[in-house]
């Protein structure tokens, strides 16, 4: 099953009412948080609340993710012991520093998910400068990995980088390149400078989309609609993609590898871009149909 991952709502795991609310919002994925959104003293309670919610809540086709604690913490082991992993669609993993972290994670998860379960996919968070430079290797380290997530908050805390589109352009582009090199998605952090400003969230999502990101985390219900909108191909984009692909296939049938379509030079690279637009449109449509 391919999930659209345009909007991922991160919700603190110790608050049962908020988890129940999360699965009513128009997001592609809910991420129940056991990590930084939960005070250390509340983690045992949060594990119980999240396990119960996973067992009882109908997510309505939304992808069910859990943000566990980082590799190397004993909290991660307790998270894996507590979770019904057969009801988790993906693990959202913070602070991945190197390929060794991914390898340890694979071994631990394999031990707790049991032999009968299909392997649980990973969304890996790159949020430190050292990990940024290893992002391509991290993205390719496990066949379970489906996406890289750029945690710009921690990244800026470690580097002093401003949370502006200009300042984030290089790390974002590197994450998108790393994700692209491994054939996985790139997901951007939430726009958290002003979570109630829907227009600012839209502008921020447009920048991320231009760099190659296919989705964003959201914190506030008001961010959901603009983010879904930005990462959903428009009817015009879909129509253009279809016509470019049709024109290219027609040209190829006559032995041409390149052509001009409406003044635009088209070769195989453009075709692959258009195919990607259609794939995103199909994933988004399947979400809409599942509601």
């Amino acid at each position, binding site marked *: 099953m391919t999930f659209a991952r345009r909007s991922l709502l991160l919700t603190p795991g110790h608050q049962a009412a908020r988890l129940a609310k999360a699965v009513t919002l128009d997001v592609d994925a809910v991420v129940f948080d056991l990590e930084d959104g939960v005070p250390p003293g509340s983690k045992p309670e949060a594990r119980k609340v999240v396990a119960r919610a996973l067992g009882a809540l109908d997510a309505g086709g939304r992808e069910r993710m859990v943000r566990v604690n980082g590799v*190397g913490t*004993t909290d991660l*082991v307790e998270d894996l012991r507590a979770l019904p992993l057969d009801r988790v669609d993906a693990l959202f993993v913070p602070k991945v520093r190197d390929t060794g972290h991914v*390898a*340890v994670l694979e071994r631990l998860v*394999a031990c707790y998910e049991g032999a009968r379960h299909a392997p649980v996919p990973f969304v890996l968070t790159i949020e430190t400068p050292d990990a940024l430079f290893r992002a391509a290797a991290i993205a390719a380290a496990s066949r379970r990995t489906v996406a890289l997530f750029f945690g710009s908050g921690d990244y800026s805390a470690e580097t002093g980088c401003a949370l502006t589109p200009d300042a984030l352009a290089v790390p974002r582009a590197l994450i998108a390149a790393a994700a692209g090199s491994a054939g996985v998605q790139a997901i951007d952090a939430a726009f958290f400078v002003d979570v109630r400003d829907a227009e600012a969230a839209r502008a921020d999502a447009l920048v991320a989309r231009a760099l190659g990101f296919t989705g964003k985390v959201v914190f506030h219900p008001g961010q959901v609609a603009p983010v879904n909108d930005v990462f959903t191909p428009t009817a015009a984009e879909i129509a253009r993609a279809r016509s470019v692909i049709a024109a290219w296939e027609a040209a190829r049938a006559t032995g041409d590898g390149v052509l001009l379509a409406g003044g635009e030079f088209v070769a195989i690279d453009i075709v692959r871009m258009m195919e990607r637009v259609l794939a995103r449109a199909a994933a988004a449509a399947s979400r809409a149909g599942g509601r």
Partner: protein
Amino acid sequence: MTTAMRSWLFAPGNEPRKVKKVASFGADAIILDLEDAVPNADKVATRPMVRDAVREIQGPLVCVRVNGLATGLTAGDVDGVAVEGLDVIVVPKTETPEDVLAVDAMVAAAERREGLPAGRVRLLPLVETARGVLAASAIAGASPRVVTIALGSGDFTRDLELPVIRWSLEGRELAWARAKLVVDVRAAGRPRPLDGPYIAVRDAEGFVADCRVAKSLGYQGKILIHPSQVEAANRAFAPDPDEVAFCRKVIETFTAAEKQGSASITVDGIFVDYPIVEKAQRIIALAEALDAKDRRAGATPPAGRQR
């Protein structure tokens, strides 16, 4: 572990009679097995039996061999036996440092849950494949919990597809891997490694020869699969009495020479300077520590080491 751990005696965790007796043979360490010696159908039910034994056994270092990561049983094994009294988890079929770190994480969580001091339970990775042997130094250095590593010689010869079950007495089939592991664990700053079992349990002579080869290469001790091997292993892996006597002579002669202003001499034709003296002191200290340990345990010090 300040002294050499010479004898590591296995007992199948699902056989109460053997578990009850395993600590009575004078082994420096005992290993209660949840892995290969236990039938698959009994593995989960064996955990509480081993857990009780871990709490009760006094004297030797108490170890439990859990099932390997590929089985999916490791976490349940660790959770089932990590209680007061457990010294070491033996990790079979270790091939990468990440294998060690995964078990390390399970052990750390179990310690916290059980209220054991952090770092109390140590790890002994078993290296028993070609991949594992190549990665041995990284495995030994993967976590501060690693006590040393042990060569699983039987599985290793199987992984190499050697055309024999009984390798030669001088161990030439294993020579390279045995020598490599010594360098690997020392490079990682860990105590000397442990040799794998000698499977011809009734061949006492062959056993002693096998111990001698391992000791000469730098092994501190050996995994044992039969109680009858304990005494011979304790003797074989202790410093040789003749060597200890020579070490004493070296130190006496050198100390006298040093007073005369000389720090490089020969003793019985052997060149001696400070590094050699230091080595001699270490060998004597090890011999004395092992003597004291055996006396405390009430065992007769192995013949030839009595003075």
